[in-house]
């Protein structure tokens, strides 16, 4: 049995060159900013971020959503961590080796990795944690992310006991993880909170309240000092953290402001250093007045409109679907309606590392040509200006979704004469309507990749995927995905996925509209952050520069 020893350098090799050196057309924007008063650090090393909303829980295994992930990234550290630019770097594991068949990973855990109470972080902690994560009794929302691990699916579905999970400790500091199939993106899963370690003694002692500030023992660069619900989460530097010497901040505040206008006002009043997003109708104003502080980076997400392919008028009617897709002027949506630099999308999967979707032919046409083509397809589908289609777009309540829906409706009306009704629903109602596929005709969809691999998008349109709300079912597509999932990383696998996407784009079960960008306002005195495609930011890289204007809290 010969194992290839992979240092970090090699592991980056495996992934192309990490997300950094990938695409030529989306140059990496660095958010590093020099403060006005040079490199001198402020006395008060406090970083105040708006997090958009409160996490439901700070239990890494049960947490759900971006706000929770943001906080957990500071509190905990997984086997693998990320550099400021998003490259994978060793976290709790200082190195790892992968077997030749790509199905077993052996991690060497740092000798100095410690919990915030001083306990050593050992391999058994990870065994405990990963088992807990897949145990259906834990009630984890994201346990399905761990399906690549051996037996994980059976454990999650309650068919096997968690002890059978393919994770074991070899002594104190070596952890072995066995996989079902070679999973080229497995390393990236290890930065997700589902795989973070929890401190076994405190979980056992406190049960679900181990996440309370007074109980929480964590192993990241920060510890939980206080959590005032709907008010703020306060983190304090963890002096037991193995890399504490490189931490500069003493405290991080996470505010749960869900109103982007309020967030902007507080940012302008110097009460926030970092906003989670920017209100799009205020972007012209922001670009004029806060140009230097607006940081926009490509984000690994795709915004689309899905057809309900299981019901008329869209069932078995690719001409109609094509007509509606062609009639949308994506540049107007990205440049005028949203205006933050979103990228018009003609393919479904956003470019990631070596993967770049093959542009369909019509992507090269002018909008006028597309619209003419759209009219032809519309007629072929059996509709005409005198016999117009009338349909409904469902979207969840949000300013941006509303604006996009209004824009698309007006384009369809103008080009084809389609009568479009808009219907917005609250998030949870929307999720149910979309899932049931009973009332939906056209729905808003959006997906942010869970890990930086095209598969996180490709699988969404697999006929058996629960999140395939369009009801798209293509045997060819499913077969290519299956074929890709059995292959190791490399061109071959990517080709399968590329081909699958091409087949799908010919069927047009969804209308790709644009690829996301992350939009933050960041004060000039905040340094150390860099834009990255996953929009992951670790506070341990942040320093606060001296500035007269910093308001003390």
């Amino acid at each position, binding site marked *: 049995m010969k194992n290839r020893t992979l240092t970090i350098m090699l592991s980056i090799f495996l992934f192309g060159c990490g997300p950094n050196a990938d695409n030529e057309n989306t140059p990496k924007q660095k958010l590093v900013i020099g403060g006005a008063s040079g490199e001198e650090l402020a006395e008060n090393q406090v970083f105040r971020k708006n997090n958009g909303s409160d996490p*439901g829980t700070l239990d890494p295994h049960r947490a*759900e959503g971006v706000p929770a992930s943001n906080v957990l990234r500071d509190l905990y550290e997984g086997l693998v961590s990320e550099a400021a630019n998003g490259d994978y770097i060793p976290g709790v594991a200082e190195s790892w080796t992968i077997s030749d068949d790509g199905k077993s990973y052996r991690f060497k855990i740092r000798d100095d990795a410690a919990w915030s109470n001083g306990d050593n972080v050992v391999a058994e902690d990870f065994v405990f944690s990963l088992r807990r994560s897949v145990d259906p009794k834990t009630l984890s929302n994201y346990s399905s992310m761990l399906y690549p691990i051996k037996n994980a699916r059976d454990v*999650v579905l309650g068919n096997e006991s968690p002890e059978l999970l393919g994770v074991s400790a070899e002594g104190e500091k070596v952890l072995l993880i066995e996989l079902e199939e070679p999973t080229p993106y497995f390393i990236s899963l290890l930065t997700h909170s589902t795989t973070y370690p929890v401190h076994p003694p405190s979980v056992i002692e406190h049960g679900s309240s181990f996440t309370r500030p007074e109980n929480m023992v964590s192993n990241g660069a920060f510890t939980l000092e206080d959590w005032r619900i709907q008010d703020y989460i306060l983190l304090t530097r963890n002096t037991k953290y193995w890399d504490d010497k490189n931490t500069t901040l003493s405290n991080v505040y996470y505010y749960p402001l869900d109103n982007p206008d309020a967030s902007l006002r507080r940012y302008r009043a110097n009460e926030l250093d970092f906003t989670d997003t920017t209100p799009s109708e205020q972007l012209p104003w922001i670009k004029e007045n806060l140009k230097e502080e607006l940081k926009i980076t490509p984000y690994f997400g795709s915004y689309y409109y899905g057809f309900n392919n299981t019901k008329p008028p869209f069932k078995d009617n690719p001409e109609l679907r094509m007509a509606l897709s062609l009639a949308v002027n994506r540049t107007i949506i990205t440049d005028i309606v949203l205006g933050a630099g979103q990228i018009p999308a003609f393919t479904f999967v956003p470019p990631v590392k070596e993967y770049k979707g093959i542009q369909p032919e019509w992507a090269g046409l002018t909008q006028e040509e597309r619209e003419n083509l759209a009219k032809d397809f519309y007629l072929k589908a059996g509709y005409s200006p005198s016999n117009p289609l009338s349909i409904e777009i469902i979207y969840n309540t949000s300013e941006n979704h509303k604006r996009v829906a209004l824009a698309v409706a007006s384009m369809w009306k103008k080009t084809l004469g389609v009568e479009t009704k808009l219907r917005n629903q609250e998030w949870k109602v929307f999720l149910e309507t979309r899932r049931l596929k009973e009332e939906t005709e056209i729905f808003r969809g959006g997906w942010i990749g869970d890990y930086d691999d095209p598969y996180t998008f490709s699988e969404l349109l697999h006929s058996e995927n629960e999140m395939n709300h369009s009801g798209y079912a293509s045997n060819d597509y499913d077969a290519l995905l299956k074929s890709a999932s059995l292959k190791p990383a490399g061109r071959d696998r990517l080709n399968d996925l590329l081909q699958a996407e091409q087949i799908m784009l010919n069927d047009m079960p969804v209308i790709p509209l644009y690829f996301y960008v992350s939009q933050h306002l960041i004060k000039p005195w905040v340094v150390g952050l860099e834009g990255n495609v996953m929009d992951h930011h670790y506070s341990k890289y942040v320093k606060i520069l001296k500035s007269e204007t910093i308001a003390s809290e």
Partner: protein
Amino acid sequence: MSNFRFVIGRFLGAIPTLLILICLAFFLVKAAPGGPFDFERSLPEEVEANLRAAYNLDDPVYLQLAKYIGDLLQGDFGPSFQYRDYTVTELISTGFPVSLRLGFAAILLALFFGSLIGSVAALNQNSKLDYGVMFFGMIGISIPNFVMAPLLVLFFSIGLKALPAGGYNGGDFYHMILPVVSLALPQMAYIARLTRGSMIEVLSSNFVRTAKAQGLSTKTILFSHVLKPTFLPVVSYLGPATAAIITGSVVVEQIFGLPGLGRYFVQGALNRDYTLVMGVVVFYGCLIILFNLIVDTLYGFIDPRIKQNR
């Protein structure tokens, strides 16, 4: 003694009210489409089944209701769906003090300044001062607080940099100024108008005129004859004012990012946090009942005729 019986009677009378309130809220929430376990990423069936079991959602509805009421009797509002490691009782007990501080300060401010400027206007009827006050009153009533609050922030926080633009900060004075003022303004304006109208009426009534004819000093007349009848309508407006303040606090808490019950409620409704939503509704229901009771008692104290009519 009769006072005591009146209070006890009202307390007992509140029990069916509360029951109806609980049932109404319960069935409304149950009838809502979209469940607390609908997420962008769908849950594996087994996990969802476990979640449903953990929250007793598989029992028949009447059993769930019975259990809910049973728990309520012990002061337990149940676990929150949204804040998975907290109970609704905990959430209400952290959110309520914030809303109470905000609402109470706003009511006091509105009452004090509202009746003060209303009285000043009435005593100087048809003067410039009077018109000024009335104009302010109309402005206060006509500008919704979701316009007023951002205006105040733009001016005082971003322009003058004098006051915080948001945040609770333990409820310290500076952080509460703008929220309280934006919440109190419409009510202050309303109370000013109410006081003015009422006082003008009282001033022109026969017994005041008689008192004047008898040569009593203006001060004596004001304090012994005018104030009490003037403030009767203001006292009876306290109920609607409180309701308006509770509603307004939903807006103000949102704009200033205050961790109050109104914000919990909206968040809870959006996230299908069944227990949190019900908890807030039931809790506010109790408060309203209590408050009505206090107002009735107060009214009876000011105007003894009321009690006979009941």
